[in-house]
């Protein structure tokens, strides 16, 4: 292929899009809708995953010390726990604070201490956070092995439950993305096939006049590429702006819904959409004219 022929292909693809403008728009709109849905769900799944991670890493271990351990030893144990691999944060809750919390819970602050005759029956305890939620069990066991620790509690049942739900959510997310990805792929390919189908005669004529397969393919390839690029560009823009809008709207109220605010992810996923859409458009187009080239 000579270079000037490439120029001709570009002009030809552009002209063709323009002359079949109505069809081009329909195809591009189809790409845009599919890619928008895919993009929106991609972000949704990312966010759900993010929230789930958030929830998981909020899980704490409560390590109750023996009741009769002096404060000095408590502090020492705290240091020991802090030195364990995977531990990120250790807070010592002295028994006085523990009692206060308990009293508040029952709504009878003074009574509780009074009722026990001024004796605080509670132990000191440590609140421990770990870096990787998956390591929580092993850390808990390591803490339990430290002398002076009476009991370790990380709400085993609840945590297991939470982890199960999160695992389930992740699979669901992967499933949804796979489904939508496949759906978008098929929809784009089908659309481009229909668009190419309505021009099958044109392809035949080119062949009869002596055009090689690649000579016919190139402009269609470029057309598909541009349809994909344009359609998924619109989709990416919509996803981007839509997400910013959601961030702004939910923004202040969403302490409970910690959305991803990382510009990088947003940028990469929109770029991914555009790249994917263009690729599918171009390849779909190539693939679709194949059967009409056999003359």
């Amino acid at each position, binding site marked *: 292929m000579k270079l000037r022929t490439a120029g001709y292909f570009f002009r030809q693809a552009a002209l063709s899009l323009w002359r079949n403008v109505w069809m081009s728009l329909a195809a591009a709109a189809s790409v845009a809708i599919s890619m928008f849905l895919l993009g929106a769900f991609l972000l949704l799944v990312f966010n759900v995953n993010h929230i789930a991670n958030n929830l998981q890493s909020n899980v704490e271990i409560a390590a109750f010390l023996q009741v009769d351990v002096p404060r000095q030893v408590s502090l020492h144990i705290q240091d020991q726990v802090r030195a364990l691999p995977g531990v990120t944060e250790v807070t010592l809750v002295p028994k006085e604070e523990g009692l206060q919390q308990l009293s508040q819970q029952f709504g009878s602050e003074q009574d509780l201490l009074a009722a026990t005759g001024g004796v605080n029956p509670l132990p000191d305890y440590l609140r421990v956070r770990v870096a990787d939620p998956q390591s929580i069990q092993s850390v808990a066991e390591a803490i339990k092995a430290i002398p002076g620790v009476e009991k370790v509690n990380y709400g085993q049942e609840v945590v297991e439950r939470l982890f199960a739900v999160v695992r389930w959510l992740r699979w669901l997310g992967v499933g949804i993305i796979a489904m939508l990805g496949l759906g978008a792929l098929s929809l784009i390919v089908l659309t481009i096939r229909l668009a190419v189908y309505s021009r099958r*005669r044109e392809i035949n004529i080119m062949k009869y006049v002596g*055009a090689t397969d690649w000579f016919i393919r190139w402009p269609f390839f470029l057309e598909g590429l541009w349809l994909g690029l344009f359609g998924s560009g619109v989709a990416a823009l919509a996803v981007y702006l839509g997400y910013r809008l959601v961030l702004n709207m939910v923004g202040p109220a969403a302490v409970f819904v910690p959305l991803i605010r990382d510009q990088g992810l947003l940028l990469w996923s929109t770029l991914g959409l555009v790249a994917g859409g263009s690729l599918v458009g171009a390849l779909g187009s190539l693939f679709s004219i194949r059967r009409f080239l056999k003359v």
Partner: protein
Amino acid sequence: MSLIQFFNVTKQYPPNITALDDVSVKIDKGEFVFLVGPSGAGKTTFIRLLFREEVPNRGQIIIGGRSISRLKRKEVPLLRRNIGIVFQDFRLLPDRTVFENVAFALRVVETHPREIKPRVEKALAQVGLSNRARMFPHQLSGGEQQRAAIARAIVNNPGILVADEPTGNLDPATSGDIMKLLEEINRLGTTVIMATHAWDIVNSMRKRVIALQHGRLVRDDREGGYGYEA
């Protein structure tokens, strides 16, 4: 050796239509051949086989020493580029202008862009369509579409020019001009094969006439007239 050779060629269409039946014929380089016969005799089929739109069910077609049923897929375009074809149903690209349709035959052989414009304009002038260059096929009259198809077939100076009913939609005066053009092209060395019903043209030109009927070759005269009764 002849440029084009048909050896016992038979072409059948499903379900059971025999469009060409055991046809053998040789055409030399530089010849001018009329292909005549009643409607449905197999003239268009003969032409389709020539440029390999169809392949024969039986028999061999040799062009320039090569069997075209044995061409590889990549070689088919090369064959077609050397054959200028005027289709009975024109087959212009609907979404390109007349100019672009004619230019397309040059583009596929990657002619230098600077050459394209003058050559297309010359071809359009030869068929009297200069003032329709910017229009689309659907904006042309039947005769104008036919002339555009002729311009596309000749622009590339092909070695072989095959024309299926190139004057079917033309008035006698324009037909005469086109025939003069084809004769001119033939004189410059191009082999011309023309399927036609125009008995007046055939009779007045006294060229070789190949007559088909029901798919069979019924007559082959050096300097014949129109007519296909065996």
